[in-house]
């Protein structure tokens, strides 16, 4: 009744459920009475299934994703990247996984397990971000005090330390001295925290070392948040566009006095 080609087109569209209702029903009626037609339809369905399950889906490589992210207008992205990098990474992951779930039924259970893990990980990472940074701050402080490498530039004069640090960083850290009894400014070094080079300023308070890390912040000013990490006291705040993390093995009261002195000096600058 029709050209073979035309018939193949109709069957192909029938399998895709793209025929109008009348034609669709007509083929169903024909197939009910025609064994060879049923076989051709089955064959098309098997072919479709083997392509959908068997062919390689080329997900965007991370290199490409990074290139696409760089298309963002320069200024706003800086803020966004530092404020919420993980939610958007999480969205992308969820999107990729939902695609897998949609058309790879065999992989669905694995994908679901991975999704649960990934979601858990993202949440965990967000929760732990601050704590991991605190950990890194303490580790850096401990490494420096264990070795001989407490400071790169040893000077009690902030007029010497500040230009030295500025020349080695992409920002100019505020360098303050402590006006406390028994307090000495030892100097500064360049360290690496939170994925970037930061300024580390080192003080001696009595027998104890105090390290103050400084790098540019994206958010507004915050009050000091105190915490204890592996027996070290830490404090973190943002002021004047600068992150500041302070860490020491001083006892809690002395540590708070030091932090208070730093903040007064900062405010007086």
């Amino acid at each position, binding site marked *: 009744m029709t050209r073979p080609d035309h018939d193949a087109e109709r069957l192909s*569209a029938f399998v895709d459920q793209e025929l109008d209702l009348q034609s669709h029903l007509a083929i169903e009626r024909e197939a009910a009475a025609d064994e060879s037609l049923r076989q051709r339809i089955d064959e098309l369905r098997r072919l479709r299934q083997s392509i*959908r399950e068997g*062919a390689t889906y080329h997900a*965007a490589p991370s290199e490409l994703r990074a290139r696409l992210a760089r298309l963002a207008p320069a200024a706003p992205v800086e803020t966004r990247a530092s404020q919420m990098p993980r939610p958007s990474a999480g969205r992308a992951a969820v999107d990729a996984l939902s695609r897998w779930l949609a058309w790879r039924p065999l992989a669905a259970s694995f994908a679901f397990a991975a999704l649960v893990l990934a979601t858990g990980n993202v949440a965990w990472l967000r929760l732990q971000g601050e704590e991991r940074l605190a950990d890194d701050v303490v580790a850096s402080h401990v490494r420096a005090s264990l070795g001989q490498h407490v400071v790169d530039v040893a000077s009690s004069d902030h007029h010497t330390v500040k230009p030295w640090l500025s020349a080695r960083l992409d920002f100019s850290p505020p360098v303050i001295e402590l006006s406390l009894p028994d307090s000495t400014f030892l100097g500064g070094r360049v360290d690496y925290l939170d994925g970037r080079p930061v300024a580390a300023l080192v003080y001696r308070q009595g027998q104890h070392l105090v390290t103050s890390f400084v790098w540019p912040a994206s958010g507004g000013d915050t009050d000091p948040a105190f915490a204890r990490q592996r027996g070290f006291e830490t404090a973190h705040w943002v002021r004047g566009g600068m992150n500041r993390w302070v860490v020491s093995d001083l006892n809690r009261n002395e540590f708070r006095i030091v932090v208070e002195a730093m903040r007064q000096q900062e405010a007086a600058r």
Partner: protein
Amino acid sequence: MNDEGNWRRFEALALPHADAAYNLAKWLLRNDHDAQDAVQDAFVRALRYIDTFRGENARAWLLQVVRNSCFTWLKENRPAGQTSIDDEEAALEVPGPAAQEPQAIAARQDERARIDAAIAALPFAFREVLVLREFEDLAYKDIARIAEIPIGTVMSRLARARALLRDALAPGARPVLREVPRPTVNGRA
């Protein structure tokens, strides 16, 4: 709209379809490096025109831009006559470097590689509609818009693509493209 607003729209509408974009480009250009360049080019254009997008199917809209990038890339980087997407008969005659692959790989009994190679060996016009249908599960009307062809042509190209794949994947199959060995382009001898 300002840059920031455009970027936010782009981030919400286009970026989630990076996988679909790359998958299409990779299947059309058959090369990672070229596919990445084509996708980046497409996203640059998508970002520029994002405020003109009014439809509902952002994925189909984006894939149309990606497809055009790939097509442009092919026109600029392939010798004339090597790729024809308008004339199905001519398209069938394109031998392509991948034409020998199904047979060679079939010997290795690697089902995935066999299917991939069979799809890669399809002429551009058939590969395009097949990828949009089987990988992206797009409706014929969306495929028609992306490939800039009538729905009837989508239907006939899909049927032809499937017939070619069926032959290529049949046990002991000869390479599909051997069946149309005419060495002419656009019907000229």
